[in-house]
Every structure is written in C-alpha cells, then in structure tokens.
C-alpha cells in the first residue's frame, strides 16, 4: 500500500534521477519483493553529495574481512558521477580513516582535487597517514576540535631487499605523498618533513600526532569546525561557482 507521501518521494526521486540514465522501473511497493524491506532509502533533495571515507582505504589487495574498508573502485566512479551530475552542486567529504593503500588514497585524492565542483572536507575522529592527502585534496578543509591526524613515514610490506636502492625507492614513494600535501595545503615541505620524522610523539613509530587546532596551526587544514561550518563554506563556494557572490 502506498500513501501519498511515499508517492511523492518516488516522484522526487525519479525527477532527481532524470539526468542519470533510465530510472529503475520499480515503484516503492516493489521494494519488499526486490530488497526485502518496506521502503527504500529516502530520496535525497540535497544538491550536496556527502562522501564518507572510513576505515582502511583498500587498494590493490583485498584486506581480510575484519578490516572496515573504503574501496577505491567504488569511490572513483562515484566521483565521476558527481562531477557529471546536473543535480549535484558540491561535494562534502567526511573523513574518519586510519589510512591505507598509498596508490588508492592518492588516486582518490587526485580525483577530488581535480573536480570542477566545489569540495569541502571535514576530518572527524581521525584522518591519519594517507588520510592527510585526502583531507587536503578538497578546496577547503575542516577538522573537528577533537579529531586527530597522524603524520608519519610510509612503510613497506612484503619482501624488502636490503639495498640502498630500497631506501631511495621508499624516499621517492614518500615524496609522492609529501608533494601532494604541500601542493594542496599551506604547509612547507621542510615543515612537513620535520613532522614526519618527529620523535617522542608516537609510542612505536616516528611521526607526529596533530589534534584539531594544531593541524590548522601547521597549515595542513584550513579551519577548525564541524558540520555546520563545513556546509556553510560549501554553500558559499557553490554560490561563488555559480557566478554569484558569497551569501
């Protein structure tokens, strides 16, 4: 049985999907048949798309099931769709990640940094390791006062040949991450390298933990704030993008 509000939501979902290929021919009533649930997720009226990156960023190797992961092969086409969609005007990137695959993390970060639509990132909880390039890839970045970012050098897994070239290779891989962060934030390469090699900040590794405001002070993140500030900034960027001035 369909009530009026459900009918409306179906219509709004269809109109929202108008530029996104043919709509699925299922009405709300068929959700029980198709999905085993009484209602589909409600249709979003928002022109902002929220992309959450949580847990490990999974790259070329599938991680064992106890890891909570964000899969890059799913996120990258989503970003393409967001870039192309007529309805989505801005992207809000929410980060609570412990890091993960360097290639996958940098791939997502490069995608976000080259989007034409306004992007704002918000670090909640943690944005560690490869989460740092992701946080700075947006046009404007926010960090919650209690959120942390761990800046530390990359490591290598698997067989490592103990030759000077290995060190050189690791250095170059580290530079990919460092250069990306330097390109997209206000921190200098020297300062970032200093944070990377800091001792005394972590119990079993070199590196530095930055909490909330500290990340802003070092110039990695733009502002301290929460969801309200992030959305406000995104709205401002959207109106600038559309040719109007800020609110």
């Amino acid at each position, binding site marked *: 049985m369909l009530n009026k509000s459900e009918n409306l939501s179906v219509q709004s979902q269809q109109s929202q*999907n108008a530029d*996104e*290929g043919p709509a*699925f021919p*299922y009405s709300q009533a068929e959700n029980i*048949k*198709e*999905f*085993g649930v009484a209602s*589909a*997720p409600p249709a979003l009226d928002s022109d902002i*798309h929220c992309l959450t990156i949580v847990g*490990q960023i999974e*790259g*070329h*190797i599938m*991680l*064992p*099931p*106890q*890891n909570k992961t964000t*899969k890059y*092969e*799913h996120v990258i*086409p*989503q970003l*393409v*769709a*967001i870039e*192309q*969609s007529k309805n989505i005007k801005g992207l809000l990137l929410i980060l609570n990640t*412990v*890091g*993960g*695959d*360097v*290639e996958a*993390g940098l791939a997502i970060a490069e995608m976000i940094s080259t989007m034409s639509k306004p992007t704002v990132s918000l670090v909640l909880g*943690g944005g*560690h*390791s*490869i989460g740092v390039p992701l946080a700075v890839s947006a046009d404007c970045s926010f960090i919650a006062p209690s959120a942390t970012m*761990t800046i*530390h050098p*990359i*490591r*290598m*897994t*698997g067989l490592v040949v103990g030759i000077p070239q290995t060190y050189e290779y690791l250095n170059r*891989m580290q530079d990919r*991450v460092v250069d990306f962060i330097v390109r997209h934030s206000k921190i200098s390469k020297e300062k970032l390298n200093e944070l990377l090699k800091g001792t005394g900040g972590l119990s079993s*590794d070199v590196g530095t933990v930055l909490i909330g405001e500290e990340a802003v002070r070092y110039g990695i993140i733009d502002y301290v704030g929460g969801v309200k500030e992030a959305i406000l900034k995104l709205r401002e960027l959207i109106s600038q993008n559309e040719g109007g001035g800020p609110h």
Partner: protein
Amino acid sequence: MILHTIVPIQYIFSDYTAQTRSTPRLIEWNNVKLEVLPAGEGKYQINRILSTNPFDYLNPRLQPGIIIQVDPKI
C-alpha cells in the same frame, strides 16, 4: 603494495589466509553487471558493481552490501 596506515600490519593481515568469504559470482541485474555473494534462497548481496555508467555507482539501490532478490529464470 605500500600501506600507509597507523594500524599495525599484523592486525590488518591477522587472518589473511582464513577462508571466511564465499566465492563471489557475476550476475546481470536490471542491465547492470554485479559481483555478488550468495545470501540465501534466490538472494544475493552486492559485493561490487561492474558498470561503465558512473551513475550506477550513485544509485542507492546498487550499493555494496545491499541484498537483492533475483527471480529464477523460467
């Protein structure tokens, strides 16, 4: 592969060899190719979307983890 994470490697790969996943299979559902895991009688859980249409990846009905019902072909 280079993992850049604060999580110790031994936690990430603690049961790397354990066979806890069932084998995924490929199906076509509403003209979208999906990699699915069996989830009971005629039901599948979406593991991955294999589509060249980027909007399939934003479709709320085609997100990984969602259970879909596939009618048997008569």
